[in-house]
């Protein structure tokens, strides 16, 4: 076989391996720093239901306001019926307070819209960061917070161009 071809393949695969390694290292660093949690690739397809002791609604608002990143935050409702919407150009999510369950307070978080590229969600890292921040917020309110997951039914719409 041509030596140049072999050399090219070796360099090509070497660079590919290096790129994958750098990506994995970056992911590991984010996990270690607590900015994200290692999740299933399609984590955005499931809603998370948080069950905890009633937090102060004003405190929830304050904590939500501190969530950083290029995420637009909109709030609606009252202390009884809190509702938050998070949006970016590529995805949207909502967090809403639901009816109490066995005397416990219930919040439901779910991604409502996201763009994909070749079947992969485009803003997965930012989505993971937001979900992690929301989870940490609930743990800070009540260390014994319980989380349940629920698959969400959603529709895909493929654009022609």
């Amino acid at each position, binding site marked *: 076989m041509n030596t140049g071809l072999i050399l090219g393949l070796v360099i090509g695969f070497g660079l590919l391996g290096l790129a994958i390694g750098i990506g994995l290292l970056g992911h590991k660093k984010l996990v270690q720093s607590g900015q994200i949690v290692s999740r299933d690739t399609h984590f955005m397809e499931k809603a998370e239901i948080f069950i905890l002791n009633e937090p102060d609604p004003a405190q929830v608002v304050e904590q939500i306001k501190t969530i950083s990143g290029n995420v637009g935050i909109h709030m609606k409702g009252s202390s009884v019926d809190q509702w938050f919407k998070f949006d970016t150009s590529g995805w949207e999510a909502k967090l809403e307070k639901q009816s109490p369950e066995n005397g416990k307070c219930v919040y439901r978080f779910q991604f409502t819209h996201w763009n994909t590229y070749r079947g992969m969600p485009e803003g997965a890292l930012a989505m993971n960061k937001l979900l992690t921040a929301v989870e940490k917020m609930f743990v800070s309110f009540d260390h014994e*917070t*319980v989380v349940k997951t629920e698959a969400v039914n959603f529709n895909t719409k493929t654009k022609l161009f």
Partner: protein
Amino acid sequence: MAPFIIGIIVTGIIMVIVGTIGNKIVDKGENALRKKEVEKYNAAHKDDKGERLADRFK
């Protein structure tokens, strides 16, 4: 030259029509399959007691 341009335009129109209809069919099929999967997952996890959230941050 004119038949060539007409050919390009007709091909483009056919591509757009076939692409649009094809995407709709694929999306419809995918959505129907997902709906069944979601129902199956939620039925199987209906009685789940959930997990302690703090355990994710150990």
